[in-house]
């Protein structure tokens, strides 16, 4: 069994079935992708994994432990971190603060000892700062650690959001359209970046993406969703030639 397993996930909103009986098994250490046309239910699937929605039916397992319906903050504590389709940084705070906030979930001091700057809280704070700076240095963001998040260029903001997710010490990273709004050149760099962090931090990555070249280039396994159904899964080669996938993306070929 893989690191993340969705078994029979169904998500209904009133009469609309956004995700229907979805089964996914993400292998540890892989980069895998969830693709599909607009409205196929990809983000809904993400939201059932991260606890934003409790699925109508089915279960989510992370490292063989059932996490269905747990609150998002508890799921992050277990080791699943995400980014958002429309970047959600803490805009008015500095780059370093953004990263430090992602360290807060593991804090051991309570608010009193933290406020009173007890020796162990000082040590913890110092450790958090050092860890954050090391992360920023690894990702090449240390030179801008005092800038406000909203003042960064778009590409850097995407990068910072991934960095922030990494700072939670996640084992599984969910990226929701990391390349949205990027030009081919930036997308190329992003592919390299995703691969690097996977190797460096021993991550498993599951992403939603519309840039097919990015998906085909870096994912070991691809799941294709259409109208809430999983219509295909496999390697880039397998999925690319699957008639159902072609149909979903391009429509049925009319008989002459």
């Amino acid at each position, binding site marked *: 069994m893989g690191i993340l397993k969705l078994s029979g996930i169904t998500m209904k909103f009133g009469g609309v079935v956004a995700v229907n009986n979805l089964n996914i098994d993400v292998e540890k250490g892989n980069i895998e992708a969830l693709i599909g046309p607009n409205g196929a239910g990809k983000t809904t699937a993400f939201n059932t994994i991260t606890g934003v929605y409790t699925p109508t039916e089915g279960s989510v397992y992370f490292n063989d432990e059932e996490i269905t319906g747990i609150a998002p903050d508890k799921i992050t504590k277990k080791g699943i971190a995400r980014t958002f389709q429309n970047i959600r940084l803490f*805009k008015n705070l500095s780059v370093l603060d953004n990263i430090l*906030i992602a360290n807060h979930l593991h804090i051991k001091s309570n608010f009193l000892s933290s406020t009173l700057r007890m020796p162990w809280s000082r040590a913890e704070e110092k450790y958090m700062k050092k860890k954050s700076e090391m992360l920023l240095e690894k990702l090449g963001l240390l030179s801008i650690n005092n800038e406000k998040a909203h003042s960064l260029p778009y590409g850097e903001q995407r990068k910072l959001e991934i960095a922030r997710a990494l700072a939670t010490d996640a084992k599984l990273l969910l990226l929701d359209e990391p390349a949205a709004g990027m030009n081919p050149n930036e997308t190329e760099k992003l592919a390299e970046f995703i691969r690097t962090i996977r190797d460096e931090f021993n991550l498993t990555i599951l992403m939603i993406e519309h840039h097919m070249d990015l998906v085909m280039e870096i994912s070991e396994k691809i799941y294709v969703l259409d109208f809430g159904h999983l219509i295909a899964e496999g390697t880039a080669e397998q999925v690319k030639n699957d008639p159902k996938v072609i149909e979903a993306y391009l429509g049925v070929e009319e008989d002459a």
Partner: protein
Amino acid sequence: MITNKKNTLFRKLNILTVIIAIILLYLIDSDIVGNQYIKRILNLCAIYTIVSVSMNLVNGFTGLFSLGQAGFMAIGAYTVAIFTVPVELRESIFYVVPQNPVLSQIQIPFFPALLIGGLLAALVAILIGMPVLRLKSDYLAIATLGFSEIIRIIFTNIKTITNGALGINRIPAIPSLELDNFNISFGPMWSIFGIAALSVLLISLLVNSSYGRAFKAIREDDIAAQAMGISPFKHKVMSFAIGAFFAGIGGGLLASLLGTVDPKQFYFTMTYNFLLIIVLGGMGSISGTVIASFIVTAGLELLRFFDEPLTLFGVNIPIFRAGLRMVIYSILLMVLVLFFRNGLLGQKELSWNAIIGWFKNKMPSHKKSEGGAL
């Protein structure tokens, strides 16, 4: 090296400021400078500082639009009133409905009573906060406003505990701390300013700790904060309760300073004074709030001039009458909201660096020589 030198300079300036403040406090407290009126206004300023900074923690730093501050102050004020009035005076104060027989035998010294008041306010905040903090923005404001009115109405009606609408008077003044060996006595002003300084210090330490960063994260984007493993609910309740604790402390000090409490004091309009202060000072700026507390509280007193009849060159100016003060106050409020939406300092804090920078900018000679860099 240069930053090191600057830091030692700033540290010296800080120490100097504290020393000047202590000397001023000594001069005013021992009646060498000023008079009772000035003393009273300054004490009020310090108490308003405590409550405003605590409100800024909730509204400015955690991003919760809460208007319940008057309610929490009432809890602190009544706790101090009920427990510090000497037992032998109780009967003459509760002359319509006698006080609860158990309570009427309990008398606690001022400082423990003050602490209990703060803790009770925090406890009530936790109980209220658990259902109410699930609401957002305007809805939360309405719910907290309602809560503060409920507290006031409860206090008006539990006559055996609070003496109802009559209120409790003859509350003893904040005790002076005597140092007999040195023949020095620290009057109530020292306690009020001491507690105010301590409150501001504690809140700014909290705001700059990891928990403070979590509060700010919730203010910036609570969905992202939760995705980063921060429980918005737990941290909102925490901030709300800490804010209520300091509001309770402020209320307790106020009760003792005025010597009397009654439910009408804690009408919801009181909360608007604090709202004005934190908006003027800057939501998310502690130093801004402290400055604004002094400006607004002292300003409201100075504006009393407008409430008195004015005769210029033998002509009585008709608009100078009771009520004009509030008109001017409201106009100032509108100007503030229209032109200074971020307040004095926005989310920034006052620092020596900023002050020196500001003065440098004002000096034309510097502007000429360094203008090219900007």
